[in-house]
């Protein structure tokens, strides 16, 4: 009983950490630009696929991983420069379609150059499972959780203790005011896309040894990251992390105890319930419209 529960919990937290990283990516871009970046999932895919590609090309693992984070970050910046900056202030629908267009381009290019196959990456520190109260934990899960924790702490430090982070926060609260005090808001936009893409890629790399990867895994991962971000209250960083873990755990529990066929539906059922009863998510701020 307990062992089974723990087993579901471990796998839930592990996937949940990836969702959390994706949700943080959504949050960063949303705060800087009010854009929901539907290409976020493709960064996750890109991270995993590129790590496999560079490793197979013979690069030492650290270099391969570094490049697998760097390239998506550059892609994120390109999307921002070429497709988001030119249409600043466009309608939500327009922005959604642009980012979906970007996601198709990324997915299509990967399909053309890296193929449709499913790939894996060796676990970073072996495949010897760790036994805990009858449940097994893969060492890779510890990597996922550890790196996610480090990233979250680093982000917290960045936003609370550095000038760049504070400039990004200021821009998210009031863009015009931020510009007036001399913050380069285009720079903020640029940085937020680079960071979001890198976060997604990190998640994608970490999870690949556990869940495998292919050119089309980005859609579902991205949408679940979006669920996590909305669950936590769009725009709230801590909410994104909690939302991600929650989506992961509930998905894993639902798949284990209720129906594994409906595993992918669980996050969406969850988010509909949340939106019906708590329209601002778990931690979203109440907003009063000014007229």
């Amino acid at each position, binding site marked *: 009983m307990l062992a089974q529960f723990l087993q579901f919990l471990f796998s839930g937290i592990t996937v949940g950490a990836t969702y959390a990283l994706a949700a943080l990516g959504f949050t960063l871009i949303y705060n800087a630009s009010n854009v929901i970046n539907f290409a976020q999932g493709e960064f996750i895919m890109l991270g995993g696929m590129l790590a496999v590609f560079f490793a197979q090309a013979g690069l030492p693992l650290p270099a391969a991983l570094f490049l697998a984070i760097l390239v998506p970050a550059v892609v994120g910046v390109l999307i921002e420069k070429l497709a988001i900056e030119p249409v600043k202030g466009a309608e*939500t*629908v327009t922005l*959604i379609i642009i980012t979906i267009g970007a996601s*198709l*381009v990324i997915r*299509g290019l990967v399909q053309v150059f890296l193929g449709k196959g499913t790939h894996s990456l060796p676990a970073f520190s072996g495949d010897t499972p760790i036994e805990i109260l009858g449940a097994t934990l893969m060492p890779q899960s510890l990597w996922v959780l550890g790196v996610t924790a480090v990233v979250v702490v680093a982000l917290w430090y960045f936003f609370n203790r550095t000038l760049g982070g504070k400039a990004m926060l200021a821009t998210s609260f009031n863009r015009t005011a931020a510009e007036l005090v001399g913050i380069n808001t285009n720079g903020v936009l640029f940085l937020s896309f680079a960071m979001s893409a890198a976060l997604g890629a990190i998640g994608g790399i970490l999870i690949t040894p556990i869940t495998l990867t292919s050119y089309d895994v980005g859609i579902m991962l991205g949408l679940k990251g979006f669920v996590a971000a909305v669950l936590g209250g769009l725009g709230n960083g801590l909410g994104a992390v909690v939302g991600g873990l929650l989506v992961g755990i509930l998905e894993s529990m639902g798949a284990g105890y209720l129906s594994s066929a*409906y595993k992918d*539906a669980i996050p*969406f059922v969850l988010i509909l319930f949340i*939106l019906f009863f708590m329209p601002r998510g778990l931690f979203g701020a109440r907003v009063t419209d000014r007229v």
Partner: protein
Amino acid sequence: MQKRAYFGLYIVIAVLAILPFVLPNSFYVDLAIRMAINAIIVLGLNLLIGFAGQISLGHAGFLGIGAYASAVLPTHFGWHPVVAMLAGAVATGLLAAIVARPIFKLKGNYLAMATLGLGIIINIALRNEATYTGGPDGMPVPVFELFGISLSSDKDWYWVVAAVLVFSVWASLNLIDSPFGRALRALHGSEVASKVVGVDVVRYKVAIFVMSAVFASLMGSVTAHYVGFVTPNLADFFHSIELMTMVVIGGMASVYGSLIGAVLLTALPQALATFEGWETVVFGVILMVCMIFLPKGLVPTLAAKFGKGE
């Protein structure tokens, strides 16, 4: 404004009347039918997105319910196709009405999330209930017949779909230039202003959402009977995006834009087939370029350029 708008209807009728006599072969007739079916769905969706200013990322889900009602009910339960089609429409309408009230208290990105979630759940259900739906492989759909006349040839389908399209264009034009339609456009223009003149905003959003969902469901049934086969891809996220893209590329809040958007995006995959393997990339690039350079969509941009409003 009205007279000019209705003039376009005669052009649509003329084009639809002449088309079957100039199309070289059945491949093009088939393409025209699929364009017309999409145009009808997009007209309904444009009322929701373009005129009322709401988002739906889950309309393919409603289309899927209609399509599978027409596939499953006659096959497994022996229902008459007409009854099955209506049952699908009623079920879609009820589902849309039940979820719409809480959904339309939300705005923008939250609304996008809720409609997206709904569409994905429907799609996953269609994939999983393989006993009835055939799972990911889909299932065949019986021939549509009414009063002993069965619709099987492409030409028959063409005339039926063309008639429905003409009616839909006419009804859309009527609707936007009516008290209901003005209220719908007003809540897009300024929600608070429409509230203080007495518009029950949520009720109007729900009404148009349900209407466009029912349209999608009915056309899902038509698609199912016409093609003779359904797969869950009809109801997937990508198809919802495709439908929304037709609205936006043709032109938001433009009746004729809906037609143009549907025609172009239905033809696009055929045109892209020559790019072997690069289709997804090219499709993505086209979406982005259109939205960046023509954010208002083709018809309104061109109309503004040549100085006549629709």
